[in-house]
């Protein structure tokens, strides 16, 4: 057989491709059998959270923080319940991250609060002595980008059939309505914050990036698996 293959380069290539693809097929095919579906009750990100997610991406938070709690006792003890594949269904792209210079953030909404994030982003060592995280004071100065966030959420709805505007779910609506909701949601976050600059800016109708980022971080947790508002 091999002697024959040696004399027939075309069939040799075919045999080569077949043999070397076995390892790949064994890895890939089972993945199709267990397709990831959104968890029941998982809600998509609101526009403010989407804006926060964009801040998270542009600041490169994933360079130091992961968002994937593995099912090991040591991990769940420290970070909270393990992550399930269906929780990432509305994440485009997912932000698992591969490094843990800082702690895993996939459950951070369960165990931190708005005012904590406020202190932490302004001056990390004020709440975590010895933290090497840089301060993110510029997030208190720059405004969150509503238009891009709305565009992204709208794309999610139209192109990827992410269930916005369903009964009891996250409302998106047209751009006017979305903007209103954007402000309503930000108001709650700002009320819980301690930073005066952000509060003043909000009075003037500006929503700082930090507000969006905190909204996003608060959404990372088990509460995302329940209808919003609970």
């Amino acid at each position, binding site marked *: 057989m091999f002697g024959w293959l040696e004399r027939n380069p075309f069939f040799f290539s075919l045999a080569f491709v077949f043999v070397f693809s076995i390892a790949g097929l*064994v890895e890939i*095919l*089972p993945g199709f*059998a*267990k397709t990831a579906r959104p968890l029941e009750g998982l809600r998509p990100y609101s526009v403010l959270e989407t804006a926060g997610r964009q801040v998270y991406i542009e600041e490169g938070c994933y360079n130091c923080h992961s968002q994937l709690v593995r*099912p*090991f*006792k040591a991990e*769940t*003890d*420290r970070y*909270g*319940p*393990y992550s399930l594949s269906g929780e990432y269904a509305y994440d485009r792209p997912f932000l698992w991250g591969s490094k843990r210079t800082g702690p895993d953030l996939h*459950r951070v909404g*369960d*165990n*931190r*609060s*708005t*005012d*904590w994030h406020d*202190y932490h982003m302004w001056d990390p060592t*004020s*709440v*975590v*002595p010895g933290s090497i995280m840089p301060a993110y004071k510029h997030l208190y100065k720059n405004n969150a980008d509503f238009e891009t966030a709305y565009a992204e959420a709208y794309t999610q709805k139209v192109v990827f059939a992410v269930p916005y505007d369903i009964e009891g779910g996250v409302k998106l609506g047209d751009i006017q309505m979305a903007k209103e909701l954007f402000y309503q949601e930000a108001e709650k976050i700002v009320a*819980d914050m*301690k930073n005066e600059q952000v509060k003043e800016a909000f009075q003037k109708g500006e929503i700082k990036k930090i507000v969006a980022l905190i909204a996003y971080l608060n959404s990372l*947790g*088990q509460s995302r698996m329940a209808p919003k508002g609970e």
Partner: protein
Amino acid sequence: MQWFNLSDPINLISAIGAVVILGLTAFVSNFYINKMKTSNPKGELSGEEWDGIGKFKNNVPFGWGICFMFVMIWGFWYIFVGYPLNSFSQIGQYNQEVAAYNEKYQKKWENLSQNDLVAMGESMFLVQCSQCHGVTADGMQGKAQNLTHWGKEEGILHTIKYGSKGLGFPLGEMPPVELSEADAKAVAAYVMGEISEVKNTKYPADVAKGKEVFNTAGCTACHGEDGKGMDGSAPDLSTYGTSKFLSYVLENGKHGEIGRMPSFKFAQFNEVQIKALSAYIESLEDLN
């Protein structure tokens, strides 16, 4: 020479192993070098020749072939029947790990001394609570509740002076109460010494006076005459300073003046852990 101490069995076994391997290597290489010099292989040549080097047409050795076939059959069985591709569950593995851990936990912490509880509570505190309450539990200059006085007389004094909100009781927010310092101290003594299950106060002399103040200053309007909070309308002071109060806060969180403490239901602490955490908080010295 410590590393060559042959009375240590590991060193001895390694030394024997090293000698055996050296001996075998010498024997095998000697055998094959001699064979190369003298042997003259026989067999049918395949006819192909590459620059004067030919190839025998030997069959696969019989025993080797049998083993090879056996491993292939076993491989198919293992992948498709014995342990099919889809049958591995990481979550199942996690559940096993947790079950084994819980069993070990139960055994190890069957009879906890107070010191063990405090030590266990401290390590839990550092992992789960210190990010907001500070490594020393003093609440980091008012960023969170100062736990070094919480659950003690000083905590009650603080609550009387500044009020309290956010525990989610039907009667809602407790406003600051105007009491003289001596009266407030007496109430604290009464709560800790009489009402609370702790039944121990730093100011035993003030208890009687505290009872009087408690009944006249309006505390009973919400907490009831027995301090038990009138069936859940207000905090049950008989649990103050005990792990029951702590477990209530861990379960529900608190949205107070300082900020929001989230519910720690997600962490699924067991009873021993809450007791330990409470023991640690009780053991703290008041920092201001």
